[in-house]
């Protein structure tokens, strides 16, 4: 199975050409920004920027579409469960009011606040997925390691990240191979023909060889790395890291500004909490 998402060779679009440092720093700051903002006014610009970024990367839309459908479905399911747990959750987030639109029973109702809260939540998840897609599609494992190293992560941890990233397509390939060889031995794995309990059992059966082959490979990889002198020095430089270009400088101004903005936003929210926990236009 060829993984359509993770790329190992640097691409040639505007975002691809940024250094790993810029990509990782921008991504980390955007993460802080997404987590802190439960606010449509903050999320919307990022959502638009995410779409522009994604289009500019010229990805394979066919596979991406599949991922987006899965993500949307999973998040919708989550939201329905959220609503079932506490149909009144919007009242807590939107400052105390409760406008019931439809009520099924006394405890189960749809209020405008809950609807607003849940749709913002959904929007937030989609935005964060969009940003991580742009990040994953634009970065290579070595750039990831280099970028993490530039934010003072110890380089052994950076290596863990980059090897893990590099290894994900291999897991997919191994899984396919094991599945095919199991089917060749007569194990039925078609979801339509096998009940759920059997499928769990068969997944475990695939898991054992998958884990064993993966950990068997540890020796080979680590020997190869040792032979090339990995882990001798206290610091490390990265071959994939090139000189900063003009685009990197533009991004630097952008992410520094965003960092300052996020810091001010978080501090101001702690010092003087707003009346409602999220921006709600209908109150």
């Amino acid at each position, binding site marked *: 199975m060829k993984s359509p998402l993770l790329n190992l060779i640097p691409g040639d679009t505007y975002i691809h050409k940024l250094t790993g440092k810029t990509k990782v720093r921008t991504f980390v700051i955007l993460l802080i920004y997404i987590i802190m903002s439960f606010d449509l006014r903050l999320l919307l610009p990022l959502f638009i920027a995410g779409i522009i970024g994604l289009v500019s990367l010229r990805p394979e839309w066919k596979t991406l579409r599949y991922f987006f459908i899965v993500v949307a479905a999973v*998040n919708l399911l989550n939201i329905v*469960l959220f609503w079932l747990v*506490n149909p009144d959750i919007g009242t807590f987030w939107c400052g105390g009011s409760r406008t019931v639109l439809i009520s099924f029973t006394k405890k189960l109702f749809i209020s405008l606040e809950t609807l607003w809260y849940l749709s913002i939540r959904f929007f937030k*998840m989609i935005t964060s*997925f969009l940003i991580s897609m742009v990040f994953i599609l634009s970065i290579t494992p070595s750039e990831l390691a280099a970028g993490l190293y530039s934010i003072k992560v110890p380089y052994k941890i950076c290596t863990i990240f980059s090897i893990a990233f590099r290894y994900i397509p291999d897991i997919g390939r191994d899984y396919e191979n094991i599945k095919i060889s199991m089917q060749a031995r007569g194990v039925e794995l078609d979801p339509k023909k096998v009940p759920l309990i059997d499928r*769990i059992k068969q997944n475990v059966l695939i898991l054992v060889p998958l884990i064993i082959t993966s*950990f068997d490979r540890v020796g080979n990889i*680590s020997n190869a*790395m040792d032979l090339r002198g990995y882990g001798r020095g206290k610091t490390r430089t990265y071959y994939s890291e090139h000189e900063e270009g003009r685009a990197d400088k533009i991004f630097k101004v952008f992410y520094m500004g965003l960092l300052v903005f996020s810091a001010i936003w978080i501090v101001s929210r702690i010092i003087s909490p707003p009346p409602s926990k999220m921006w709600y236009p209908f109150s």
Partner: protein
Amino acid sequence: MKSTSQKILGVWNTKTVVAVAIGAALFGVLMNYGGIPVFTNTKLTTAMIIPVIVGAMFGALPAAIACAVGNLIADLIGGWGYWFDWSIGNGVLGFIVGLLPLYGANIDEGIFKPVHAIIYAVACVIGNALAFGVITPIMTTLFYGGELEVTFLQAMAAGLSNTLVLVVIGIPILIILARRNARSTDLKLEEKEEQNI
């Protein structure tokens, strides 16, 4: 023999780095594709097996890091948003279930007796209770503020399903791995100078 601190912190040579990385990748992928949803953002996932194996072979801290990094990767490719509280919770859980070498189980040399299985099962229950009953809710309030109600329900679902997976699938896999490695027990590896960094 490894000292106690080495059993907990692990020996950070190249082999450990690679094993943790592969463990994290497996964790991330299994978290996404190897599970059945039980509750919001919670799955009956086979991913929890990975820290046990990493812990059994390399110590508790490598297991914790594999778990935490794995969760980050799962978040990155999963698309349900970023939940660092859960990454930390999983890290703590990874640490506790990865304590296998501390109480004498040694998968590398094929030692995994029924006593170890019992201690391991108890450790799983305690680890889940601590990680998802205490650590994750605290982190949730710190990072995201609120949503505690849902977090507690999620934590309960996650804790229960994790314990189930860890015990029901974990013990057989540990036995298989131990039996597989037991073949080489007659061979003694000369203790080589290990580089601590």
